[in-house]
């Protein structure tokens, strides 16, 4: 995250490859399910032996004995609808919810976040100058697709959403993909967007684009239920 500050986000998870390296982020939507970006995974059918999610820490390289750290192997991957750029990861066992690990709410189906809603992005990715050794958080405000499409010349689809461009470099970057755009609604944090690979990151004067989660909430519930 560029232009953010160290912060807390108990539903943000770090995805780890077989060498234990962080390569993407995800969001804890159920005790045993993490939502993240399709682009982070080689395939919907490749074995995931050795891949893990790490939760309950703010450090990119936590010490193994760090209190609260939970390291849970990924058991299964389920790819979302073709246009979703999403995957759901089923964990080998449920996480333990506590002060450091919490679920994030899912929005109602097809819910459209009102413009100006206050949101935040989090991640351990590229921080440009700030330390990416800790979880960084940046605040952003939602704008309508209509306003966003002015700058992006109509390329923003309805299953995507945008946040206001700032004149200073603030935004998600390499290593943050799959992480949450969480918005504060009715005194709860709701997972409204997913950080997806963009051609630019933290570019001043340029609205950021996220995957709109509410379009795929029915798929998420169906996978978890089935």
């Amino acid at each position, binding site marked *: 995250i560029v232009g953010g500050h160290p912060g807390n986000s108990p539903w943000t998870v770090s995805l780890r490859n077989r060498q234990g390296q962080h390569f993407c982020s995800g969001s804890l939507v159920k005790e045993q399910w993490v939502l993240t970006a399709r682009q*982070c995974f080689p395939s919907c*059918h490749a074995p995931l032996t*050795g891949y893990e999610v790490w939760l309950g820490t703010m450090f990119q390289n936590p010490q193994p004995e760090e209190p*609260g750290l939970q390291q849970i192997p990924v058991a299964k991957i389920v790819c979302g609808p073709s246009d979703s750029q999403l995957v759901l990861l089923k964990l080998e066992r449920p996480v333990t919810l506590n002060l450091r690990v919490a679920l994030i709410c899912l929005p*109602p189906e097809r819910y459209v976040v009102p413009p100006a809603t206050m949101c935040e992005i989090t991640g351990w990715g590229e921080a440009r100058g700030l330390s990416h050794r800790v979880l960084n958080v940046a605040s952003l405000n939602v704008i309508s697709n209509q306003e966003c499409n002015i700058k992006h010349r109509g390329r923003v689809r309805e299953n995507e959403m945008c946040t206001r461009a700032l004149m200073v470099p603030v935004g998600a970057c390499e290593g943050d993909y799959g992480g949450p755009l969480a918005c504060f609604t009715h005194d*709860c*944090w709701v997972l409204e967007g997913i950080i997806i690979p963009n051609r630019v990151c933290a570019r001043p004067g340029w609205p950021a684009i996220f995957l709109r989660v509410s379009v795929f909430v*029915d798929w998420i519930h169906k996978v978890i239920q089935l």
Partner: protein
Amino acid sequence: QRSPLNDFQVLRGTELQHLLHEVAGSWQKVVGDAEECAKHCGARLDCRAFHYNMSSLSCQLLPWTQHSPHTRLRRSASCDLFQKKDYVRTCIMDNGVRYRGIVAKTVDGLLCQSWNHKFPNDHKYKPTLRNGLEENFCRNPDGDLGGPWCYTTDPTVRFQSCGIKSCREAACIWCNGEDYRGSVDHTESGRECQRWDLQHPHVHPFEPDKFLDKDLDDNYCRNPDGSERPWCYTTDPKLEREFCNLPRCGSEVQPHQEATTFHCFRGKGEGYRGTANTTTAGVPCQRWEAQSPHQHRFLPEKYACKDLRENFCRNPDGSEAPWCFTTRPGMRVAFCYQIPRCTEEVGTEDCYNGSGEQYRGSVNKTRKGVPCQHWSAETPHKPQFTPTSAPYAQLKENFCRNPDGDSHGPWCYTTDPGTSFDYCALRRCNDDPPVSILDPPDQVEFEKCGKKLDRPHQWLSKLR
């Protein structure tokens, strides 16, 4: 600091059964681990293998191996089978004096004479447990440089070499040797390799059960991390890891190379050969032959098969996707996720309107081409929607349908046990644009979720 297990080859979850002998030696109570068992078995000439029971921490010594007559291997939930390498390896180390395999023909195909026979060739050897002269198997009791040999049953040829290959020659490497599955277990300086399933003398991240596709067997040379050639951790505490000296298989073109792609990437993108040369977020990539701003070991000439040309995104080490070193000093590497993934989906054969609730066609495979499960079947997935529970949806045979009004279109339960349901090889009809969702937002109801403390700095000091 070699482990006694270095002399053994393991078969995980396997039991060796002897068809004629009900039970072999008794189970010995061992407090320690498989290494303790290996110490016991290694010291006994009549022990060729042992079972190690992971739950009772005990072992059973065996006087036979899977190559002995009347034996067979069987899956086991609690046992691992360790067999002495000398008895099961099909190649020889050094001059083969320790070879205990079952080859019994000479290089010209002559059948070997049994060692305890004096006819047609009389000789001075007397079979013992120590010299391992067994039946008519090739052996090297006199340390002959030509390797294992035998007396032959052809009166005109007294003895002849058996031509058993050295382990080094038995398998060669293509490109960087990621596919090498040979049995060389020493490094180029002659140090013995450490077993991959041990963390001593060197602690390491390459646990065999995390890298199943790399076959990190026993202490054989392997290349699990995209190094320039196979290597291993060594039993020398002063040298952590070292390359192995293995023969190349001639031309650099690997016979079963992954299909190359140029405009998209498949799987991990190891076959990508396009010209994308920036990171996802547009940072220019560093040229592979350059060592600035980032020094690295991926030299183009050492990775001839990986096509490390200019500053193109590539995946020479099996990472999750094509990547590159970046020209930004503060950012060493980054993925090139802007390269689209090649679709894994099969072509669509039909279309549906709306969300497909009224679709009544006969397409019966998923978007990945997996055949659908019949709606009336109970396996491999127990259906929630059946022809009786959802008569309105006309769930016929295994045709794609949408009994729950899924907004993403018709779907079916699949015949793949690992995928309970998936969307079908169907597309939305062109003349039916989806209803826009950008209406005024509805009311929001939430259950128990979405709460957090927001005092980061106090939080930080608490953790550290």
